[in-house]
Protein backbone atom coordinates (compact mmCIF):
# COMPACT_ATOMS: atom_id res chain seq x y z
CA UNK A 1 0.00 0.00 0.00
CA UNK A 2 2.97 2.32 0.27
CA UNK A 3 4.60 4.48 -2.36
CA UNK A 4 2.79 5.11 -5.60
CA UNK A 5 -0.87 5.84 -5.34
CA UNK A 6 -3.44 4.13 -7.54
CA UNK A 7 -4.46 5.52 -10.94
CA UNK A 8 -6.77 8.15 -9.41
CA UNK A 9 -5.47 9.29 -6.05
CA UNK A 10 -8.10 9.66 -3.32
CA UNK A 11 -7.05 13.22 -2.63
CA UNK A 12 -5.14 15.38 -5.00
CA UNK A 13 -3.98 18.92 -4.29
CA UNK A 14 -2.89 20.89 -7.35
CA UNK A 15 -0.98 24.18 -6.88
CA UNK A 16 -2.92 24.99 -3.74
CA UNK A 17 -2.18 28.35 -2.17
CA UNK A 18 -3.64 30.32 0.72
CA UNK A 19 -2.70 33.83 1.69
CA UNK A 20 -3.90 36.12 4.43
CA UNK A 21 -3.37 39.59 3.06
CA UNK A 22 0.31 39.83 2.20
CA UNK A 23 1.22 36.70 4.12
CA UNK A 24 1.28 33.46 2.11
CA UNK A 25 0.63 30.62 4.54
CA UNK A 26 0.57 27.91 1.87
CA UNK A 27 2.26 28.41 -1.50
CA UNK A 28 1.75 26.45 -4.67
CA UNK A 29 1.51 23.10 -2.94
CA UNK A 30 0.85 19.91 -4.93
CA UNK A 31 0.64 16.39 -3.58
CA UNK A 32 -1.46 13.21 -3.83
CA UNK A 33 -2.75 10.74 -1.29
CA UNK A 34 -3.65 7.24 -2.44
CA UNK A 35 -6.54 5.27 -1.00
CA UNK A 36 -5.61 3.39 2.17
CA UNK A 37 -2.44 5.35 2.71
CA UNK A 38 -1.25 7.29 5.76
CA UNK A 39 0.50 10.52 4.80
CA UNK A 40 2.34 12.20 7.66
CA UNK A 41 3.00 15.95 7.51
CA UNK A 42 5.73 17.50 9.63
CA UNK A 43 7.37 20.89 9.80
CA UNK A 44 7.88 23.78 12.20
CA UNK A 45 4.92 25.65 13.59
CA UNK A 46 3.67 28.25 11.18
CA UNK A 47 4.84 26.23 8.18
CA UNK A 48 1.27 26.14 6.94
CA UNK A 49 0.29 22.62 7.98
CA UNK A 50 -2.84 23.55 9.88
CA UNK A 51 -3.70 26.12 7.24
CA UNK A 52 -3.50 23.33 4.67
CA UNK A 53 -6.07 21.38 6.71
CA UNK A 54 -8.28 24.48 6.99
CA UNK A 55 -8.14 24.76 3.22
CA UNK A 56 -8.91 21.12 2.52
CA UNK A 57 -11.72 20.99 5.08
CA UNK A 58 -13.29 24.17 3.72
CA UNK A 59 -13.10 26.29 6.88
CA UNK A 60 -10.76 28.71 5.15
CA UNK A 61 -11.06 28.36 1.38
CA UNK A 62 -7.97 28.26 -0.83
CA UNK A 63 -6.94 31.43 -2.64
CA UNK A 64 -5.48 29.50 -5.56
CA UNK A 65 -5.30 25.93 -6.87
CA UNK A 66 -7.58 22.92 -7.07
CA UNK A 67 -8.41 20.13 -4.67
CA UNK A 68 -9.82 16.86 -6.00
CA UNK A 69 -11.42 14.08 -4.01
CA UNK A 70 -11.78 10.87 -6.02
CA UNK A 71 -11.20 12.96 -9.13
CA UNK A 72 -14.03 15.38 -8.28
CA UNK A 73 -13.22 19.02 -7.60
CA UNK A 74 -14.13 20.05 -4.06
CA UNK A 75 -12.37 23.42 -4.08
CA UNK A 76 -14.50 26.13 -2.53
CA UNK A 77 -16.97 23.73 -0.88
CA UNK A 78 -18.39 24.78 2.47
CA UNK A 79 -17.16 22.79 5.50
CA UNK A 80 -20.38 20.78 5.71
CA UNK A 81 -20.19 19.90 2.01
CA UNK A 82 -16.60 18.72 2.45
CA UNK A 83 -17.78 16.58 5.33
CA UNK A 84 -20.60 15.11 3.26
CA UNK A 85 -18.15 14.47 0.42
CA UNK A 86 -16.22 12.18 2.77
CA UNK A 87 -13.48 14.17 4.48
CA UNK A 88 -13.56 14.34 8.28
CA UNK A 89 -11.14 16.22 10.43
CA UNK A 90 -9.86 16.42 13.99
CA UNK A 91 -8.48 19.59 15.49
CA UNK A 92 -5.26 20.66 17.11
CA UNK A 93 -7.15 22.16 20.01
CA UNK A 94 -9.30 19.58 21.70
CA UNK A 95 -12.50 20.61 19.99
CA UNK A 96 -15.75 19.22 21.34
CA UNK A 97 -19.33 20.16 22.06
CA UNK A 98 -18.59 20.73 25.69
CA UNK A 99 -22.14 20.97 27.02
CA UNK A 100 -23.16 17.65 25.48
CA UNK A 101 -22.49 14.08 26.52
CA UNK A 102 -19.88 12.08 24.64
CA UNK A 103 -22.60 10.09 22.90
CA UNK A 104 -24.37 13.24 21.71
CA UNK A 105 -21.05 14.50 20.37
CA UNK A 106 -20.66 11.44 18.22
CA UNK A 107 -24.34 11.48 17.30
CA UNK A 108 -23.84 14.89 15.72
CA UNK A 109 -21.29 13.33 13.38
CA UNK A 110 -23.43 10.29 12.71
CA UNK A 111 -26.65 12.19 12.04
CA UNK A 112 -25.44 15.28 10.19
CA UNK A 113 -22.13 14.09 8.83
CA UNK A 114 -23.01 11.25 6.47
CA UNK A 115 -24.94 13.21 3.91
CA UNK A 116 -26.86 16.35 3.20
CA UNK A 117 -30.22 16.62 4.93
CA UNK A 118 -32.66 18.89 3.17
CA UNK A 119 -35.20 18.53 5.97
CA UNK A 120 -34.09 17.36 9.41
CA UNK A 121 -36.20 14.51 10.75
CA UNK A 122 -38.11 14.74 14.00
CA UNK A 123 -35.82 12.26 15.74
CA UNK A 124 -32.26 11.12 15.14
CA UNK A 125 -33.31 7.56 14.31
CA UNK A 126 -31.86 4.18 15.03
CA UNK A 127 -29.26 4.15 12.24
CA UNK A 128 -27.58 7.28 13.55
CA UNK A 129 -27.61 6.00 17.11
CA UNK A 130 -26.07 2.71 16.03
CA UNK A 131 -23.39 4.44 14.00
CA UNK A 132 -22.59 6.62 17.00
CA UNK A 133 -22.29 3.65 19.35
CA UNK A 134 -20.12 1.79 16.83
CA UNK A 135 -17.76 4.75 16.59
CA UNK A 136 -17.50 5.03 20.37
CA UNK A 137 -16.72 1.30 20.53
CA UNK A 138 -14.09 1.56 17.84
CA UNK A 139 -12.14 4.19 19.76
CA UNK A 140 -12.61 2.33 23.03
CA UNK A 141 -14.53 5.04 24.85
CA UNK A 142 -17.98 3.43 24.99
CA UNK A 143 -17.76 3.51 28.79
CA UNK A 144 -17.54 7.32 28.66
CA UNK A 145 -20.67 7.68 26.52
CA UNK A 146 -22.73 9.46 29.16
CA UNK A 147 -19.99 11.71 30.53
CA UNK A 148 -20.22 15.45 29.82
CA UNK A 149 -17.59 16.26 27.20
CA UNK A 150 -16.29 19.41 28.85
CA UNK A 151 -15.21 17.38 31.87
CA UNK A 152 -13.35 14.60 30.06
CA UNK A 153 -9.55 14.35 30.37
CA UNK A 154 -7.38 15.30 27.40
CA UNK A 155 -6.85 11.78 26.04
CA UNK A 156 -10.57 10.95 26.07
CA UNK A 157 -11.37 14.22 24.34
CA UNK A 158 -8.93 13.42 21.58
CA UNK A 159 -10.36 9.94 21.14
CA UNK A 160 -13.88 11.38 21.19
CA UNK A 161 -12.96 13.81 18.45
CA UNK A 162 -11.78 10.85 16.37
CA UNK A 163 -14.94 8.90 17.17
CA UNK A 164 -17.18 11.74 16.01
CA UNK A 165 -15.08 12.02 12.85
CA UNK A 166 -15.44 8.28 12.22
CA UNK A 167 -19.19 8.50 12.79
CA UNK A 168 -19.44 10.60 9.64
CA UNK A 169 -18.18 7.50 7.71
CA UNK A 170 -15.32 9.35 6.00
CA UNK A 171 -13.12 8.19 3.16
CA UNK A 172 -10.35 10.47 4.33
CA UNK A 173 -9.50 11.52 7.86
CA UNK A 174 -7.38 14.60 8.55
CA UNK A 175 -5.78 14.51 11.99
CA UNK A 176 -4.17 17.67 13.36
CA UNK A 177 -1.60 16.85 16.04
CA UNK A 178 -3.46 13.87 17.48
CA UNK A 179 -0.86 13.33 20.23
CA UNK A 180 0.05 16.92 21.10
CA UNK A 181 0.39 17.29 24.86
CA UNK A 182 0.06 13.55 25.63
CA UNK A 183 2.45 11.42 27.68
CA UNK A 184 4.28 8.47 26.16
CA UNK A 185 1.74 5.90 27.31
CA UNK A 186 -1.15 7.95 26.00
CA UNK A 187 0.65 8.33 22.68
CA UNK A 188 0.70 4.53 22.37
CA UNK A 189 -3.05 4.40 22.91
CA UNK A 190 -3.64 6.93 20.14
CA UNK A 191 -1.27 5.05 17.88
CA UNK A 192 -3.37 1.90 18.28
CA UNK A 193 -6.48 3.93 17.48
CA UNK A 194 -4.91 5.30 14.30
CA UNK A 195 -3.95 1.79 13.19
CA UNK A 196 -7.50 0.58 13.84
CA UNK A 197 -8.89 3.43 11.75
CA UNK A 198 -6.52 2.60 8.93
CA UNK A 199 -7.49 -1.07 9.15
CA UNK A 200 -11.13 -0.09 8.67
CA UNK A 201 -10.20 1.22 5.25
CA UNK A 202 -9.97 4.94 5.93
CA UNK A 203 -7.18 6.98 4.36
CA UNK A 204 -5.40 9.29 6.79
CA UNK A 205 -3.39 12.48 6.62
CA UNK A 206 -1.83 13.42 9.92
CA UNK A 207 0.08 16.46 11.12
CA UNK A 208 2.47 15.85 13.98
CA UNK A 209 5.43 17.34 15.77
CA UNK A 210 6.31 14.17 17.60
CA UNK A 211 8.57 12.62 14.96
CA UNK A 212 8.64 9.24 16.68
CA UNK A 213 4.89 9.02 16.15
CA UNK A 214 5.10 10.34 12.62
CA UNK A 215 7.76 7.96 11.30
CA UNK A 216 6.20 4.93 12.93
CA UNK A 217 2.73 5.41 11.50
CA UNK A 218 3.19 7.10 8.16
CA UNK A 219 3.55 5.30 4.86
CA UNK A 220 4.89 8.49 3.39
CA UNK A 221 6.07 11.73 4.93
CA UNK A 222 5.85 15.29 3.73
CA UNK A 223 7.77 18.09 5.44
CA UNK A 224 6.54 21.67 5.05
CA UNK A 225 8.43 24.88 5.66
CA UNK A 226 7.30 28.44 4.99
CA UNK A 227 4.18 27.13 3.26
CA UNK A 228 6.15 24.99 0.86
CA UNK A 229 6.97 21.31 0.58
CA UNK A 230 10.64 20.69 1.29
CA UNK A 231 10.44 16.90 1.40
CA UNK A 232 8.09 14.16 0.29
CA UNK A 233 9.03 10.50 0.47
CA UNK A 234 9.41 7.39 2.59
CA UNK A 235 10.16 7.80 6.30
CA UNK A 236 13.37 5.83 5.80
CA UNK A 237 14.71 8.48 3.44
CA UNK A 238 13.88 11.39 5.71
CA UNK A 239 17.17 11.53 7.55
CA UNK A 240 19.18 11.37 4.34
CA UNK A 241 17.69 14.63 3.15
CA UNK A 242 20.02 17.55 3.70
CA UNK A 243 17.32 20.26 3.65
CA UNK A 244 15.19 18.50 6.24
CA UNK A 245 18.11 18.07 8.61
CA UNK A 246 19.34 21.62 8.14
CA UNK A 247 16.07 23.48 8.11
CA UNK A 248 13.77 21.44 10.28
CA UNK A 249 15.26 18.76 12.49
CA UNK A 250 18.69 20.09 13.33
CA UNK A 251 21.52 17.63 13.97
CA UNK A 252 20.76 16.74 17.55
CA UNK A 253 17.17 15.72 16.87
CA UNK A 254 18.20 13.91 13.67
CA UNK A 255 20.64 11.74 15.54
CA UNK A 256 18.14 10.84 18.23
CA UNK A 257 15.53 10.04 15.62
CA UNK A 258 18.01 7.86 13.70
CA UNK A 259 18.85 5.79 16.76
CA UNK A 260 15.16 5.50 17.58
CA UNK A 261 14.30 4.30 14.08
CA UNK A 262 17.15 1.77 14.11
CA UNK A 263 16.04 0.43 17.46
CA UNK A 264 12.52 0.20 16.13
CA UNK A 265 13.61 -1.79 13.13
CA UNK A 266 15.96 -4.15 14.99
Amino acid at each position, binding site marked *: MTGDAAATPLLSCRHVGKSFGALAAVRDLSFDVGAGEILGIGGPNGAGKTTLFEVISGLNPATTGTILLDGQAITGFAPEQICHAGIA*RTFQLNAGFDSMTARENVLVGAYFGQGNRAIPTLR*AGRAAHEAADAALDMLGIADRADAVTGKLPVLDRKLLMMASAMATKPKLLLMDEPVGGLTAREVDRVMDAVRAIKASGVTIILIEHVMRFLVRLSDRIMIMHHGEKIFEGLPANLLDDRTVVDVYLGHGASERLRSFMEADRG
Partner: protein
Amino acid sequence: MTAIRRDILIGLVCLAIAIALPIVMPGRYIITQSTLFFIWAIVVVQWNLVLGIGGIFSLAQMALFATGAYATAMLGFYWKVPMLAAIPMAGLVTVAVGMLIGLACLRLRGPYVALLTLAIAQVMYVLIVNDTGCFTTTGGCMPLFGGVRGIGQFGDIGLRALFPSKWYIAHYYVGLALLALAVAISIVVIRGPLGLAFRALRDNPGYAMSRGISRFKYQLWIFAVSAFFTGIAGGFYAVHFRVVGPTVFSFSLLLFLIAMIVIGGLGSIWGPLLGAAVLMLADEGMRELSDYRNIGLGLLLAVFVIAWPNGLNGWLQRKPAR
Protein backbone atom coordinates in the same frame (compact mmCIF):
# COMPACT_ATOMS: atom_id res chain seq x y z
CA MET B 1 -35.95 10.25 26.16
CA THR B 2 -36.88 10.95 29.75
CA ALA B 3 -36.59 14.68 29.10
CA ILE B 4 -39.13 14.45 26.29
CA ARG B 5 -41.51 12.37 28.43
CA ARG B 6 -41.26 14.90 31.22
CA ASP B 7 -42.01 17.74 28.80
CA ILE B 8 -45.04 15.89 27.40
CA LEU B 9 -46.31 15.24 30.91
CA ILE B 10 -45.95 18.89 31.94
CA GLY B 11 -47.64 19.91 28.70
CA LEU B 12 -50.59 17.58 29.22
CA VAL B 13 -51.12 18.72 32.80
CA CYS B 14 -51.09 22.37 31.73
CA LEU B 15 -53.42 21.57 28.86
CA ALA B 16 -55.88 19.80 31.16
CA ILE B 17 -55.94 22.75 33.54
CA ALA B 18 -56.43 25.17 30.68
CA ILE B 19 -59.27 23.10 29.23
CA ALA B 20 -61.02 23.08 32.58
CA LEU B 21 -60.56 26.80 33.27
CA PRO B 22 -63.67 28.16 31.46
CA ILE B 23 -65.79 25.66 33.36
CA VAL B 24 -64.36 26.66 36.73
CA MET B 25 -64.06 30.38 36.07
CA PRO B 26 -66.35 31.40 33.24
CA GLY B 27 -65.98 35.16 33.77
CA ARG B 28 -65.61 36.99 30.48
CA TYR B 29 -62.69 39.15 31.59
CA ILE B 30 -60.58 36.20 32.71
CA ILE B 31 -61.35 34.26 29.54
CA THR B 32 -60.48 37.08 27.14
CA GLN B 33 -57.30 37.94 29.06
CA SER B 34 -56.33 34.26 28.91
CA THR B 35 -56.93 34.28 25.17
CA LEU B 36 -54.58 37.25 24.86
CA PHE B 37 -52.10 35.33 27.01
CA PHE B 38 -52.30 32.41 24.56
CA ILE B 39 -51.50 34.73 21.65
CA TRP B 40 -48.46 36.28 23.36
CA ALA B 41 -47.38 32.85 24.58
CA ILE B 42 -47.37 31.53 21.00
CA VAL B 43 -45.23 34.47 19.95
CA VAL B 44 -42.71 34.11 22.77
CA VAL B 45 -42.47 30.32 22.45
CA GLN B 46 -41.67 30.68 18.76
CA TRP B 47 -39.43 33.72 19.29
CA ASN B 48 -37.54 31.68 21.87
CA LEU B 49 -36.79 29.10 19.19
CA VAL B 50 -35.05 31.76 17.11
CA LEU B 51 -33.43 33.66 19.97
CA GLY B 52 -32.65 31.01 22.54
CA ILE B 53 -32.23 27.90 20.44
CA GLY B 54 -31.12 29.17 17.06
CA GLY B 55 -28.92 31.81 18.63
CA ILE B 56 -30.19 34.34 16.07
CA PHE B 57 -30.49 37.67 17.75
CA SER B 58 -33.58 38.73 15.82
CA LEU B 59 -35.89 41.48 17.00
CA ALA B 60 -38.09 41.11 13.93
CA GLN B 61 -40.54 38.77 15.63
CA MET B 62 -43.14 41.45 16.28
CA ALA B 63 -42.78 42.56 12.67
CA LEU B 64 -43.55 38.98 11.65
CA PHE B 65 -46.51 38.92 14.00
CA ALA B 66 -47.70 42.13 12.39
CA THR B 67 -47.15 40.63 8.96
CA GLY B 68 -49.46 37.75 9.87
CA ALA B 69 -52.08 40.08 11.27
CA TYR B 70 -51.94 42.53 8.37
CA ALA B 71 -51.90 39.76 5.76
CA THR B 72 -55.00 38.20 7.31
CA ALA B 73 -56.80 41.52 7.46
CA MET B 74 -55.84 42.54 3.94
CA LEU B 75 -56.77 39.17 2.43
CA GLY B 76 -60.18 39.54 4.03
CA PHE B 77 -60.62 43.23 3.29
CA TYR B 78 -59.42 43.43 -0.29
CA TRP B 79 -60.12 39.95 -1.65
CA LYS B 80 -62.87 38.80 0.71
CA VAL B 81 -60.97 35.62 1.48
CA PRO B 82 -62.75 33.68 4.24
CA MET B 83 -60.82 33.97 7.48
CA LEU B 84 -60.33 30.21 7.93
CA ALA B 85 -58.36 30.24 4.68
CA ALA B 86 -56.83 33.67 5.20
CA ILE B 87 -55.08 32.80 8.47
CA PRO B 88 -53.03 29.87 7.13
CA MET B 89 -52.34 31.88 3.98
CA ALA B 90 -51.09 34.70 6.20
CA GLY B 91 -48.86 32.15 7.92
CA LEU B 92 -47.28 31.39 4.54
CA VAL B 93 -46.93 35.08 3.71
CA THR B 94 -45.16 35.52 7.04
CA VAL B 95 -42.82 32.63 6.18
CA ALA B 96 -41.98 34.37 2.91
CA VAL B 97 -41.30 37.68 4.65
CA GLY B 98 -39.35 35.87 7.36
CA MET B 99 -37.19 34.13 4.77
CA LEU B 100 -36.41 37.47 3.14
CA ILE B 101 -35.37 38.95 6.46
CA GLY B 102 -33.43 35.78 7.20
CA LEU B 103 -31.59 35.92 3.89
CA ALA B 104 -30.68 39.53 4.58
CA CYS B 105 -29.34 39.03 8.07
CA LEU B 106 -28.41 35.43 8.82
CA ARG B 107 -24.90 35.74 7.43
CA LEU B 108 -24.25 38.56 9.87
CA ARG B 109 -22.95 38.30 13.39
CA GLY B 110 -25.22 38.57 16.44
CA PRO B 111 -25.36 42.31 17.14
CA TYR B 112 -25.63 43.18 13.46
CA VAL B 113 -28.67 40.91 13.25
CA ALA B 114 -30.29 42.64 16.21
CA LEU B 115 -29.79 46.10 14.76
CA LEU B 116 -30.86 45.19 11.27
CA THR B 117 -34.02 43.40 12.37
CA LEU B 118 -34.93 46.25 14.68
CA ALA B 119 -34.44 48.70 11.83
CA ILE B 120 -36.56 46.58 9.47
CA ALA B 121 -39.40 46.53 11.98
CA GLN B 122 -39.08 50.27 12.47
CA VAL B 123 -39.21 50.94 8.74
CA MET B 124 -42.32 48.79 8.33
CA TYR B 125 -43.93 50.84 11.07
CA VAL B 126 -42.87 54.17 9.61
CA LEU B 127 -44.04 53.24 6.13
CA ILE B 128 -47.46 52.16 7.39
CA VAL B 129 -47.99 55.16 9.65
CA ASN B 130 -46.72 57.80 7.22
CA ASP B 131 -48.78 56.51 4.32
CA THR B 132 -51.67 58.92 3.95
CA GLY B 133 -52.53 58.44 0.30
CA CYS B 134 -55.95 56.94 -0.37
CA PHE B 135 -55.64 53.46 -1.78
CA THR B 136 -59.34 52.84 -1.66
CA THR B 137 -62.24 55.16 -1.01
CA THR B 138 -64.96 52.62 -0.32
CA GLY B 139 -66.22 53.72 3.06
CA GLY B 140 -63.88 56.67 3.38
CA CYS B 141 -60.25 57.24 2.45
CA MET B 142 -58.00 54.35 3.39
CA PRO B 143 -54.30 53.88 2.62
CA LEU B 144 -53.12 50.46 1.41
CA PHE B 145 -52.09 49.35 4.90
CA GLY B 146 -54.77 51.28 6.69
CA GLY B 147 -52.44 54.03 7.92
CA VAL B 148 -52.60 55.09 11.55
CA ARG B 149 -56.13 53.82 12.04
CA GLY B 150 -55.48 50.32 10.78
CA ILE B 151 -57.73 47.89 8.96
CA GLY B 152 -61.10 46.61 10.16
CA GLN B 153 -64.11 44.82 8.71
CA PHE B 154 -62.33 41.91 7.10
CA GLY B 155 -64.45 39.05 8.33
CA ASP B 156 -64.50 36.53 11.14
CA ILE B 157 -63.85 32.84 11.70
CA GLY B 158 -67.55 32.37 12.30
CA LEU B 159 -67.48 31.52 16.00
CA ARG B 160 -69.20 34.77 16.91
CA ALA B 161 -72.15 33.77 14.75
CA LEU B 162 -72.12 30.18 16.00
CA PHE B 163 -71.99 31.04 19.72
CA PRO B 164 -73.46 34.56 19.92
CA SER B 165 -73.12 34.88 23.70
CA LYS B 166 -70.21 32.52 24.35
CA TRP B 167 -68.00 33.27 21.34
CA TYR B 168 -65.15 34.42 23.57
CA ILE B 169 -65.01 30.94 25.14
CA ALA B 170 -64.79 29.45 21.65
CA HIS B 171 -61.92 31.84 20.85
CA TYR B 172 -60.30 30.77 24.09
CA TYR B 173 -60.21 27.17 22.93
CA VAL B 174 -58.95 28.13 19.49
CA GLY B 175 -56.12 30.07 21.09
CA LEU B 176 -55.39 27.19 23.42
CA ALA B 177 -55.23 24.73 20.54
CA LEU B 178 -52.86 26.96 18.60
CA LEU B 179 -50.66 27.39 21.65
CA ALA B 180 -50.60 23.64 22.28
CA LEU B 181 -49.46 23.13 18.70
CA ALA B 182 -46.80 25.84 19.00
CA VAL B 183 -45.46 24.30 22.21
CA ALA B 184 -45.46 20.82 20.68
CA ILE B 185 -43.41 22.10 17.75
CA SER B 186 -41.05 23.82 20.16
CA ILE B 187 -40.52 20.57 22.10
CA VAL B 188 -39.84 18.63 18.91
CA VAL B 189 -37.38 21.21 17.68
CA ILE B 190 -35.54 21.59 20.98
CA ARG B 191 -35.33 17.88 21.81
CA GLY B 192 -34.83 16.70 18.23
CA PRO B 193 -31.97 16.84 15.74
CA LEU B 194 -32.46 20.56 15.05
CA GLY B 195 -31.91 21.28 18.72
CA LEU B 196 -28.82 19.07 18.63
CA ALA B 197 -27.49 20.98 15.64
CA PHE B 198 -27.98 24.34 17.33
CA ARG B 199 -26.40 23.18 20.59
CA ALA B 200 -23.43 22.00 18.55
CA LEU B 201 -23.22 25.31 16.71
CA ARG B 202 -23.33 27.21 19.98
CA ASP B 203 -20.66 25.07 21.66
CA ASN B 204 -18.22 25.20 18.75
CA PRO B 205 -19.33 26.57 15.37
CA GLY B 206 -16.27 25.56 13.35
CA TYR B 207 -16.31 22.02 14.69
CA ALA B 208 -20.05 21.73 14.13
CA MET B 209 -19.76 22.81 10.50
CA SER B 210 -16.99 20.33 9.83
CA ARG B 211 -19.25 17.60 11.22
CA GLY B 212 -21.74 18.37 8.47
CA ILE B 213 -24.03 20.97 10.04
CA SER B 214 -25.00 23.77 7.71
CA ARG B 215 -25.51 26.76 9.96
CA PHE B 216 -27.22 28.97 7.41
CA LYS B 217 -29.65 26.28 6.26
CA TYR B 218 -30.80 25.28 9.72
CA GLN B 219 -31.04 28.86 10.87
CA LEU B 220 -33.26 29.56 7.90
CA TRP B 221 -35.34 26.51 8.81
CA ILE B 222 -35.92 27.57 12.37
CA PHE B 223 -36.65 31.10 11.18
CA ALA B 224 -39.29 29.76 8.79
CA VAL B 225 -40.95 27.46 11.32
CA SER B 226 -41.10 30.22 13.86
CA ALA B 227 -42.38 32.74 11.31
CA PHE B 228 -45.23 30.43 10.32
CA PHE B 229 -46.63 30.08 13.83
CA THR B 230 -46.01 33.72 14.66
CA GLY B 231 -47.92 34.67 11.50
CA ILE B 232 -50.79 32.40 12.47
CA ALA B 233 -50.85 33.97 15.92
CA GLY B 234 -50.99 37.36 14.23
CA GLY B 235 -53.91 36.21 12.10
CA PHE B 236 -55.79 34.95 15.12
CA TYR B 237 -55.06 38.24 16.89
CA ALA B 238 -56.63 40.05 13.93
CA VAL B 239 -59.87 38.08 13.96
CA HIS B 240 -60.03 38.11 17.73
CA PHE B 241 -59.85 41.91 17.94
CA ARG B 242 -61.46 42.53 14.53
CA VAL B 243 -58.97 45.29 13.82
CA VAL B 244 -55.26 45.52 13.01
CA GLY B 245 -53.35 48.73 13.57
CA PRO B 246 -49.74 49.87 13.81
CA THR B 247 -49.77 49.42 17.61
CA VAL B 248 -48.51 45.85 17.05
CA PHE B 249 -45.18 47.47 16.16
CA SER B 250 -44.98 49.48 19.37
CA PHE B 251 -41.73 49.34 21.26
CA SER B 252 -43.44 48.82 24.60
CA LEU B 253 -45.12 45.67 23.24
CA LEU B 254 -41.73 44.44 22.02
CA LEU B 255 -40.32 45.19 25.45
CA PHE B 256 -43.21 43.37 27.12
CA LEU B 257 -42.67 40.21 25.05
CA ILE B 258 -38.89 40.15 25.23
CA ALA B 259 -39.20 40.58 28.99
CA MET B 260 -41.40 37.46 29.06
CA ILE B 261 -38.66 35.42 27.41
CA VAL B 262 -35.82 36.80 29.49
CA ILE B 263 -37.66 36.60 32.79
CA GLY B 264 -38.90 33.11 32.04
CA GLY B 265 -35.56 31.84 30.81
CA LEU B 266 -34.08 32.15 27.35
CA GLY B 267 -33.63 28.88 25.47
CA SER B 268 -35.74 26.64 27.68
CA ILE B 269 -39.03 25.00 26.73
CA TRP B 270 -41.19 26.15 29.62
CA GLY B 271 -39.39 29.35 30.63
CA PRO B 272 -40.98 31.65 28.03
CA LEU B 273 -44.46 30.29 28.85
CA LEU B 274 -43.83 30.83 32.53
CA GLY B 275 -42.50 34.30 31.80
CA ALA B 276 -45.56 35.13 29.73
CA ALA B 277 -47.87 34.02 32.53
CA VAL B 278 -45.95 35.90 35.21
CA LEU B 279 -45.80 39.12 33.22
CA MET B 280 -49.46 38.98 32.21
CA LEU B 281 -50.36 38.58 35.88
CA ALA B 282 -47.97 41.31 36.97
CA ASP B 283 -49.36 43.61 34.29
CA GLU B 284 -52.82 42.89 35.60
CA GLY B 285 -51.68 43.71 39.13
CA MET B 286 -50.10 46.98 38.02
CA ARG B 287 -53.16 48.10 36.11
CA GLU B 288 -53.76 50.91 38.59
CA LEU B 289 -50.19 52.10 38.22
CA SER B 290 -50.27 52.21 34.45
CA ASP B 291 -48.03 55.29 34.41
CA TYR B 292 -45.26 53.27 35.95
CA ARG B 293 -45.87 50.16 33.85
CA ASN B 294 -43.02 50.68 31.40
CA ILE B 295 -40.65 51.84 34.11
CA GLY B 296 -41.34 48.67 36.06
CA LEU B 297 -41.05 46.55 32.94
CA GLY B 298 -37.69 48.04 31.99
CA LEU B 299 -36.39 47.69 35.51
CA LEU B 300 -37.55 44.09 35.68
CA LEU B 301 -35.87 43.30 32.38
CA ALA B 302 -32.55 44.84 33.41
CA VAL B 303 -32.56 43.33 36.88
CA PHE B 304 -33.36 39.85 35.60
CA VAL B 305 -30.66 39.86 32.94
CA ILE B 306 -28.08 41.10 35.41
CA ALA B 307 -29.01 39.07 38.45
CA TRP B 308 -30.73 35.97 37.04
CA PRO B 309 -29.64 35.59 33.42
CA ASN B 310 -31.22 32.13 33.25
CA GLY B 311 -34.58 33.48 34.30
CA LEU B 312 -37.20 31.83 36.45
CA ASN B 313 -36.66 28.55 34.66
CA GLY B 314 -32.98 28.48 35.61
CA TRP B 315 -33.89 29.28 39.18
CA LEU B 316 -36.44 26.43 39.31
CA GLN B 317 -34.04 23.96 37.69
CA ARG B 318 -31.31 24.71 40.19
CA LYS B 319 -33.42 23.92 43.22
CA PRO B 320 -34.10 20.20 42.89
CA ALA B 321 -31.12 19.04 40.83
CA ARG B 322 -27.46 19.06 41.90
